[in-house]
């Protein structure tokens, strides 16, 4: 496999960027159709579809960004790390759309009701906490911020992503009725990615 860092920068990054944007474009396009009274694919409850769709993609990108480092370890190449920030920012982007969907479509910007809901519903509290923690990671994702903070402090802050992953999985499990498999699959992937890190650390200690 001969893919140079240069190629990944010039072609790989724009490609991943555009691919990652497809779900959001799909959603916007179908809302545009729905709004115009045209046939669309948002189903009979577009608001519910939007909530679930944006939530699904937020957690997918979060897990993808968490998968980058173990993937690089397996490949014994730092090249996948080129994409980590972008995937993390897409997690924030879809999480933002998820919150927007909830605040706009469910709560209709009724702030007092929203605040009551966030406090009263544990799964919403958990979800909101995850987003709240994700925000500073997005803000400090630039090279400038790494310099300003110093690599060590920056890395420490960005360890928050493990807690965010946990909160996101709990949020997903809690919002389903009955015993459902889908959120558990995501939680399983998250657990596997965390275990991969643990194994690597243990290996280091032994060496």
């Amino acid at each position, binding site marked *: 496999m001969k893919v140079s860092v240069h190629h990944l*920068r*010039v*072609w790989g*990054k*724009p*490609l991943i960027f*555009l*691919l990652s944007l*497809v779900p959001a474009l*799909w959603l916007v*396009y*179908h809302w545009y*159709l729905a709004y115009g009274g*045209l*046939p*669309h*694919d948002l*189903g*009979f*409850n577009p*608001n*519910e579809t939007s909530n679930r769709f944006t939530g699904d993609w937020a957690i997918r990108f979060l897990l993808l960004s968490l998968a980058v480092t173990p993937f690089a370890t397996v490949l014994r190449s730092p090249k996948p790390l080129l994409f980590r920030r972008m995937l993390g920012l897409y997690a924030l982007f879809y999480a933002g759309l998820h919150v927007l969907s909830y605040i706009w479509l*469910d709560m*209709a910007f009724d702030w007092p009701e929203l605040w009551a*809901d966030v406090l*009263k*519903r*544990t*799964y919403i509290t958990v979800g909101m906490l995850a987003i709240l923690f994700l925000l500073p990671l997005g803000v400090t994702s630039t090279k400038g911020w790494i310099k300003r903070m110093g690599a060590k402090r920056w890395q420490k802050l960005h360890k928050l992503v493990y807690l965010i992953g946990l909160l996101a999985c709990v949020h997903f499990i*809690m*919002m*389903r*009725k*009955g*015993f*459902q*498999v*889908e959120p558990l699959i995501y939680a399983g992937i998250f657990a596997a990615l965390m275990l991969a890190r643990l194994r690597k650390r243990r290996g280091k200690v032994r060496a």
Partner: protein
Amino acid sequence: MWIKNRNGWNSPERDVTPESLFLNRRKFIAGAGAIAGAALVGGAFSPTEARTLKELGAKSSAFDPGEELTPYSAVTQYNNFYEFGTDKSDPYENAGSMQVDPWSVSVDGLVDRPGTYDLMDLIDFNALEERIYRLRCVEAWSMVIPWIGVPLSSVLNKIGVQSGAKYVRFETLNDRKQMPGVRWPVLDWPYVEGLRMDEAMNDLTLMAVGLYGKELPNQNGAPLRLVVPWKYGFKSIKSIVRISLTEKQPRTSWQKSAPQEYGFYSNVNPEVDHPRWSQARERRIGEFSRRKTLMFNGYGEWVADLYAGMDLAKYY
């Protein structure tokens, strides 16, 4: 260093748009077309309906809230019927495999005439009436549906209620071969629901065999289901194979699954929230903004006295 990256961005879009993205676009345009097609053909088209739904003659509705009916396509393609999968579209896609003819219902417990009844012997198809009811799901969405059926009381009178019977217990078909969803332990199968005897005998409580002038589609609980319009939708159990009259309150599937969330009564009540979400408002399918949920789903006139003196926050 970063300036170099601009070269990539400056390339024409066709160079950086992967084929899969083009294909994806085509796919969802085609998908939208398919939905449009389905909407045009309406109820006559369904991928899984192996059988043609017979028209049912029925007396016109004595119960009509005068609200706009939820379109047939939404009523039959947006369903919770976990035996066929947990997605709203799963029942429509998977329920076609269920054999509903012939259909028998076993009747046991504190009844005068226990036994196995053919559907035709249990329901008087000459006495069908249409009832237009609001349906309020515990997930805070709602519909308005023209059901066809007979009062449950007429069925109970047919099987003969013994004096010790205080509750009615219902069971849904539980067949792995026909229902892909029961392979997953989403709930403790078979699905069980129940009513107190006075609730069961109430005039509103309907044993439905049809909707929109025809037999029930499989995904809506063919061939026989309960409709209890003042309770959350999950009380209206589908595809019933067993009716038992009991002295003790039956434990329902949802009670077993999460007793703090789903009580035996589960009356629609905007003031008693589900622990995880508010029940004050609902989204009527087809409407953009939410409307206020009515006490007993607007049926208080007929049922409020059933619960006189009861603390409805305790008996949720």
